[in-house]
């Protein structure tokens, strides 16, 4: 593995079920994440994914790629365009730093509206990959 390596993209269909299941699994009962009518009253065209779900998906993207031996150390994300039902988010990643067994990956999740999430993940690589 080298700095500049790209991770294979992961496409995530943004379903209503994913948005609601993610919100409830993260204990986030804000109405904009499960009630379309109230979301519209608040000026949003539909319900949208909560940040905790985005965070979970970014973490999954990294450990899916590096394997169960990889340990997440830091996840820093910023949200942009919301994930609305019916969209698809494509996560891509680039290795931006490598120091021994510690790697840093820049992650972008793009949907039909633009960048939903941009962020940086720091992880400890599994032993076999780090050597």
């Amino acid at each position, binding site marked *: 593995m080298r700095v500049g390596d790209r991770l294979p993209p992961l496409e*995530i269909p943004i379903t209503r079920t*994913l948005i609601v*299941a*993610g919100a*409830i*699994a*993260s*204990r*986030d*009962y*804000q109405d904009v994440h499960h009630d379309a009518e109230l979301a519209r009253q*608040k*000026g949003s065209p539909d319900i949208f994914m*909560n*940040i*905790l*779900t985005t*965070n*979970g*998906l*970014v*973490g*999954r993207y990294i*450990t*899916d790629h590096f394997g*169960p*031996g990889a*340990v*997440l*150390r*830091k*996840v*820093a*994300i*910023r*949200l942009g365009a919301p994930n609305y039902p019916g969209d698809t988010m494509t996560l891509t990643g680039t290795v931006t730093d490598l120091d021994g067994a510690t790697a840093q990956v820049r992650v972008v999740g793009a949907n039909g509206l633009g960048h939903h999430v941009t962020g940086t993940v720091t992880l400890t690589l599994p032993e076999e990959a780090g050597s």
Partner: protein
Amino acid sequence: MTELYEQLTTYEGRPTSTSGVGKDLVNTPMIRHWCEAMGDTNPAYDGPGAVAPPTMLQAWTMGGLSGHTDRSGAYDELSALLDGAGYTSIVATDCEQEYLRPLRPGDRITFDAVIESVSPRKTTKLGTGHFVTTRMDIRADGQLAGTHRFRILKYAPAAREPKGTRPRPVINRDNAGFWEGVGRHRLLIQRCGGCGTLRLPWLPGCNDCGSPEWDTVEACGAGTVYSYVVMHHPPFPAFDPPYAVALIELAEGVRMISNVVGVPYDKVRIGMPVQLEFLRVDPELELPVFRGGEV
């Protein structure tokens, strides 16, 4: 500094939770529900010796449907202050987490949080408001397990302006035939009755020979992008920037200004082949536009 902002900054450094306690011990069912929702099949989160997904950190501190009972007044006061100023909507914008030790089923979660900063008033695409950043230390059985910095925007939603209609073409006796053709989905080029030179836009006389006589030729619809600009600013009602405005060279040799559709604005190129089509922009108006890409 505005009076409100001055008031808001007095909350910087104030705790929002002191020794908050997670409503549930770290537990297998909640981990499983999380993994199911995320589609995460990582074996590290399952079976004997399982750990919780690190990104689940904040979930253990959430108040859930019954809300927070141990939150200090500072956060609610700050929220009320912002609500009162009209910043009633909320959206999370940033989350930065550091994981110092894995959380395992049975761990008892406690947390302390502090309002780290309140931004000056900012105007964003969503509306105008203030960013509020909190920092939380999360402990498992008393031992620091992670830190969580969280930023939200409390804002007044930007009023959605009713979408205007496209400007009407100015139709007069010199160009009425052109628009009448558009109404029948025909792009008509004027041809000089004297010298046969084609012209577009329509004019009362020929620039070459001066003859006022003319008839029309229907454009076949094929063309290429001769030149273009991308419109970003200023936005006009009924237009959704950025978009490409192009000078299209028709197969017949004359040029006209139009829009390129079917291609992202930043993929329009000089020389790109395009094909005429008619776009109904509102019930009263149809316009000739050009579709790029696969022609």
